[in-house]
């Protein structure tokens, strides 16, 4: 079985079980390991990618769901908000172990794409599905605000 979709801007056809979660198709079939496995039940957000621009949990999304659609992973971030988020992550020294940070950055980027000036409550709402066991939360919050400020027009 093959599934065709746009992965990080490139038309892509993967040969894989269509029930395979998108997470594993991205990691093991497409060879893009930046997206991480954390829980397998959409509870932790480590696997967050963008599907047609919206943050989704790839660990519970069957590959077949994305046929004909656009998937963006951490490796494919190119937009101004995405670059601002990544720069803020480095500037504020957010990562500790770093394992959850791809998912955090994908959620934060999706937030800024639709809400360029999020409040703390907006950040809570968009980011509470992403667990960080190192509890880098105070810096994630500060980095999202810093990223928003850096792209303010």
């Amino acid at each position: 079985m093959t599934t065709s979709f746009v992965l990080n801007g490139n038309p892509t056809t993967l040969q894989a079980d269509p029930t395979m979660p998108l997470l594993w198709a991205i990691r093991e079939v497409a060879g893009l390991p930046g997206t991480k496995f954390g829980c397998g039940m959409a509870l932790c957000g480590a696997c967050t990618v963008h599907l047609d621009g919206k943050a989704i949990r790839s660990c519970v999304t069957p590959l077949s769901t994305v046929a004909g659609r656009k998937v963006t992973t951490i490796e494919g971030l190119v937009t101004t908000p995405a670059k601002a988020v990544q720069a803020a992550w480095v500037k504020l020294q957010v990562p500790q172990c770093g394992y959850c940070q791809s998912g955090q950055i994908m959620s934060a980027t999706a937030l800024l794409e639709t809400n360029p000036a999020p409040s703390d409550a907006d950040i809570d709402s968009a980011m509470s599905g992403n667990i960080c066991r190192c509890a880098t939360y105070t810096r994630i919050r500060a980095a999202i605000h810093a990223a928003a400020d850096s792209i303010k027009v």
Partner: protein
Amino acid sequence: MTANTLSAAPTRREFLKSAGTAGAVALTIGFEWVGAARRSLAAAVAPGAAATFTPNAFLQIGADNSVTVIAKHVEMGQGAYTGIATVVAEELDADWSLVRVESAPADVKRYANLAFGTIQGTGGSSAMANSWTQLREAGGKARAMLLAAAAKEWKVPVADLTVEEGTVYHAGKKLKATFGALVATAATLPVPETVQLKDPKDFKLIGRRAPRVDAAAKSDGTAQFTIDVALPGMLVALLQRPPLFGATVKTFDAAPAAAIPGVVKVVQVPGGVAVVAQSFWAAKQGRDALIIQWDDSKAEKRSTAQLLDEYRRLADQPAASARKEGDAAQAIKNSARKVSASYEFPYLAHAPMEPLDAVVKLTAERCEIWAGDQFQTIDQANAAHTAGLDPQQVSIHTLYAGGSFGRRANVGSDYIVEAVSIAKAYGADGTPIKLQWTREDDIRGGLYRPMYFHKLEAGLDDKGQLNGWRHVIVGQSIMAGGAFAGMIKDGVDPTSVEGASTIAYAIPNISVDLATTKTGVPVLWWRVVGSSHTTYAVEAFIDEVAHAAGQDGFTFRRKLLEHQPRMKAVLELAAEKAGWNTPLPPGKGRGIAVAEAFKTYVAQVAEVSVGKDGQVKVDRVVCAVDCGTPINPDIIAAQMEGGIGFGLGAALYGAITLKDGRIEQGNFNNYRVLRMNEMPKVEVHILPSTQPPTGVGEPGVAPLGPAVANAIFAATGKRNYVLPFPNA
């Protein structure tokens, strides 16, 4: 090499200028690991390799001016790589923008943790403390050799030379040479026996906010974790472990698993039945399809409530003495006022974000392991034993660990041994196999922070002076039966009582006793180890004693710490910065707690809001820390922030419970951890110090629980004797 992924990496001076400001710190230093092609240290340091100067086991300087620091400690989030590089680069006077970090191979002769003796490993917040002098000397001696090389080439006295940012200068003759230009000569010179280390006032990197060497790679998805290892022909294995601790495989039917497309082989190993497949998904489906009959005749089948009943009984029976001064029982008996309380602490899972994993490539002669390895030489020995090889035949590539909190440091090397045993059962034919745990495997996999029961009594005289303190602790030993069992003295595992037996308060009559239990549940150290429970018991109880004495919790503690200057100083600083005496509106409360763990002193003041439904929201935590010489204030702050979030998650939600031996939790839905919306504001204040550095990875966890509990009491008048807090 991709050391500098940004083209405009600033010089060290620019970094130092910008580090204290909000200006962009663009410096990024990559830790490079290039999969199977990673060059071995041996190859890199081979004699005759003129392009490289390897003055010692911790440093290589290339003709290209690159400075490679070899880290003997795993980077699992705590900032060890950055700290290690900072200390070496400081004494070397290296150009920080050219410094990168590589992990050391398993080699106890060169890379032992000096705090552990003859073990290479990371734990007990010891990375910087044990490496401090070793790494300073490594950098300083290399600097001296480079200076000697320049002196030889230029035929000038060493005393006339200066070094700045990786370049040696002779001001008078207007000569200069980069380290790279000097490596060939330096490599021919003898290593000095001793070296004059810098006066701390001359530090240029230590004490500054050097950017983490791993921040960029961990912000663009390129950081290499074990789960990311992809080797040619690699297969993925999932292991079905027994549903009860101590159960074993009786019989199994592999056929339904083997029928799943992509499943390559089903093998039985001592730990259960493994499904080896071409992908995670096939292995997972294969494992789900396995039919296994378990022999649970020797398994642990009790429930948490039964264990707790037994622990309560043991608290009233004679136990091993961990500390005894004066006669606590008599003093309490004779006291004007008695206070008593008992506390219950659950089993806790570490739940690092990266579920445990290891890649093993095994042949009849060699075993190669990739893992976020925390106990390299213990894991090497256990892997060798499992494979039937000598330890020298086992090599370990230590990768970034996606969190650990103690989990990857276990003397049985559980996940490493599983991976090797699967590779062996598969045929030891050199096929790389990645063992991947799922979150459920992790939560139900044991090696938990032990469950404990604490009983405390105190006596106050008629002036409100604390004159007697009795503390009984009941729980399993972490060290019993393992490589660290030699540290158990007179029936006391120090990791069961630390933080309680080491209580700093001046109390004339004190006894701390331990009753060590046995259950079938495997246990392990969990971030801040003994102090993860003892500090709660001590600091919640002392608050209750202070209240009984009619005194403020801060004032009461301070008086008992008159002869503990470092403890007292963090207590005072936290109270001052938190505005301890300023009033709070109704429904809010402020609580304080202080602890020493791994020779680091931490005090925290928590401010909480308690809703009408009893719901607790921690609004703010003010933290003061004395960890000796602060090597990197930003990483110290990050570890305090993280420790506070980690401790708060455990206090509010953390519990692993058993029902007839089965673990009742399985994933983050029922083993809850802290999330973004629950994270308080955190302020960290670091005490200036020129004492040797101590660790920061763990101590920030210790005072958080009791500070919050004491704040809840201040807000509601209710004490929490059971962890996690029932109302959360």
